């Protein structure tokens, strides 16, 4: 076993003439929930796309240990199929056992909507249907782009519990969010702003380092430092 799940070294990404990721080097340890926290437009999605290998990069390298499950920010599911039909197709592509379909449906609490067309789901249900696809095949590394936005607080708590139980099984969960109150739910944090990392540490260490109990205040102090 290596001591990292994701290793990013000198990563630079240029999009539309702008350098959106400006030379990042960090690693994500296996078996933790790591939060990638930063404002909208700071390069989170581009960084995650680089990690899953669909982003053309200008320099540097990214390596990931083990299989990856990826959930995009926009729900990447077919609107004209039912939830179950979507899952069956992606399971076939991933060569995941067909029993996975029912497992992930109950993981994201969508069993009652299983035979409903994706196009008729609510925003929160749609986000969960897309998240369910990322859980197929029990990947070693989960890369989730804003998976909990727009969700009901109860459901959000349940999903965070699920992320932590996945991490306890030894899997790696990398979750992005622009909502600061989600930072406190992570084991480790990557604070990102304008294409650079402000911090890569545990919430407790960040609170201690910035002398602030509030992570939003910690982010502010790091940003203006």
């Amino acid at each position: 076993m290596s001591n990292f799940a994701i290793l990013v070294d000198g990563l630079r990404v240029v999009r539309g003439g702008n350098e959106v990721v400006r030379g990042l080097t960090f690693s994500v340890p296996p078996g933790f929930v790591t939060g990638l926290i930063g404002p909208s437009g700071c390069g989170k999605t581009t960084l995650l796309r680089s990690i899953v290998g669909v982003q053309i990069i200008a320099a540097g390298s990214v390596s990931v240990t083990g299989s990856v499950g990826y959930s995009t920010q926009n729900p990447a599911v077919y609107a004209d199929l039912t939830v179950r039909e979507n899952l069956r197709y992606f399971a076939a592509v991933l060569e995941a056992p067909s029993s996975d379909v029912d497992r992930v449906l109950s993981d994201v609490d969508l069993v009652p909507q299983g035979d409903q067309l994706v196009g008729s789901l609510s925003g929160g249900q749609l986000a969960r249907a897309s998240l369910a696809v990322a859980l197929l095949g029990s990947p070693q590394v989960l890369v989730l782009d804003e998976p909990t936005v727009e969700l009901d607080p109860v459901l959000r708590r349940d999903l965070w519990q699920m992320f932590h139980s996945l991490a306890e099984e030894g899997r790696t969960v990398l979750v992005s969010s622009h909502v600061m109150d989600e930072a406190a739910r992570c084991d480790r944090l990557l604070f990102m702003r304008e294409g650079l990392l402000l911090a890569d540490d545990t919430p407790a260490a960040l609170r201690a380092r910035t002398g602030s109990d509030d992570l939003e205040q910690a982010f502010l102090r790091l940003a203006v430092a």
Partner: protein
Amino acid sequence: MKTLATAQRILTQLRHDRRTVALMVLMPTFLLVLLRFVFNSEPMFSRAAPALLGIFPFTIMFIVTSITTLRERQTTTLERLMTMPIARLDLLLGYAIAFGLVAILQVVVAASVSWLWLGLEIKGGLGLLTLIAVLDALLGMAMGLFASAFARTEFQAVQFMPAFVMPQVLLCGLFVPRDQMATVLNWISDVLPLSYAVDALTHVTRSSDVDGTLLRNLFIVLACAVVALVLGAVTLRRKTP
């Protein structure tokens, strides 16, 4: 396996959209019936029908594929698939199988109605005619896939239909026989693949011979479909900017 899963997925999507299926299968037939009564003459209809049996599946598959692939690119389902262990060929062949089946249905219905009711003679047989029209539909599909890479919006994708398809329709010999066109136009029609499909379809309705020219024309249509599919595959990039 993943090819078949993809084909099945697309057919399931179509099954949930019955109106589209009805339009795809019945529209060419309806237009041929309309044309038959507009001409009000069996010989004139028999002259135009073979070309149209090629043009309809070609055009419809072009539109359907360019919109479907554009949608896959925009809803990021394609991005998700590109993070998974699936070859681009699996996707392309899945599309080809699913839309190929729809094209067979479309052509069999249109050709049967033309033959049984509208008085079109098919000396070379319905099977051969269907084969040519399906190759032609696959050509339209492959070109649609290629064209979709250049469309940013669905509006643009729809505009590509007249851009890619109409010149081929005008120059394929439907309106004026190709050998009577001005030399330059004749040259252009010589490099457009639809011309060969229409020549082959016209031949099959008038003669039961499977001669060298027919085989050559079929080969050209097939080769162009393969080239367009390869170009389409190049546009399905695993990594994007």
